């Protein structure tokens, strides 16, 4: 799961977003124009759902959600759909 949030952060940054870690361990997402959008907790009790919520919100604010690459799809098939 940490890998998934890190992938989202890397993607958002590559699209001009800013993601900052605050003193409490929250990852804070900012649009390219500097507007705050949402935060992801350091230790969410349900990481899958909190990640899902963050993805929904950053997409509402204009972050395009890409298709997985062919290499990633291949990797998922190899790893039994994960």
């Amino acid at each position, binding site marked *: 799961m940490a890998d998934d949030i890190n992938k989202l952060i890397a993607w958002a940054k590559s699209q001009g977003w800013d993601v900052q870690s605050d003193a409490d361990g929250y990852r804070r997402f900012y649009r390219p124009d500097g*507007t*705050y*959008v*949402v*935060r992801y*907790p350091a230790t*969410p*009790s*349900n990481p*899958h*759902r*909190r990640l*899902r*919520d*963050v*993805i*929904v*919100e950053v*997409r*509402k*604010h*204009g972050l*395009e*959600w*890409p*298709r*997985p690459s062919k290499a990633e799809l291949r990797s998922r098939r190899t790893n039994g759909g994960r």
Partner: protein
Amino acid sequence: MAKQEWTVRLVFATGAALQEAILDSLAGYAEGWDGTVANRAGGAGFAVTVDLMAASPVQAIDVAIAWIAKGVSTCCDVTDVELVDARACDPDIYQAEALKPDTPELASAADAAVILGVTRQRVHQLVTEHPRFPAPYARLATGPIWTVPTIEHFRDTWDRRPGRRPVATAGGA
């Protein structure tokens, strides 16, 4: 009626844009229910997402509204709050929609050639000569690109007759 889990997302408009500290305060309250609070897209306000048990989606929305109303009154001094959107759905559906890509699966001429089982040159020939070859989704400096489903549909409906065409002779001789 048996209770089941619902994902509820509520969007509230406010008279003025909320400061980050207020959104943090609401988010802190929501995290008590393992919920998420975000800045509202497209206007002043905020959005809340929470997963909860209820007998119906309507009841889930009612519970979530009552819960966040309490949070607004205890966590922050925002009075002009108006519910502008409410949705409750099965968590699996919500998850699937959340991760659905924005962009279609795309194919370059080289990808189309693989799908059709022809050479790249033949793809370019089809583009100019075949009346039913799909129009490109976009034209880039590197060439046209198509969506994969349109190329697959063409492949599946293409009346393909391999081999050289008979040469038409002048005067029918």
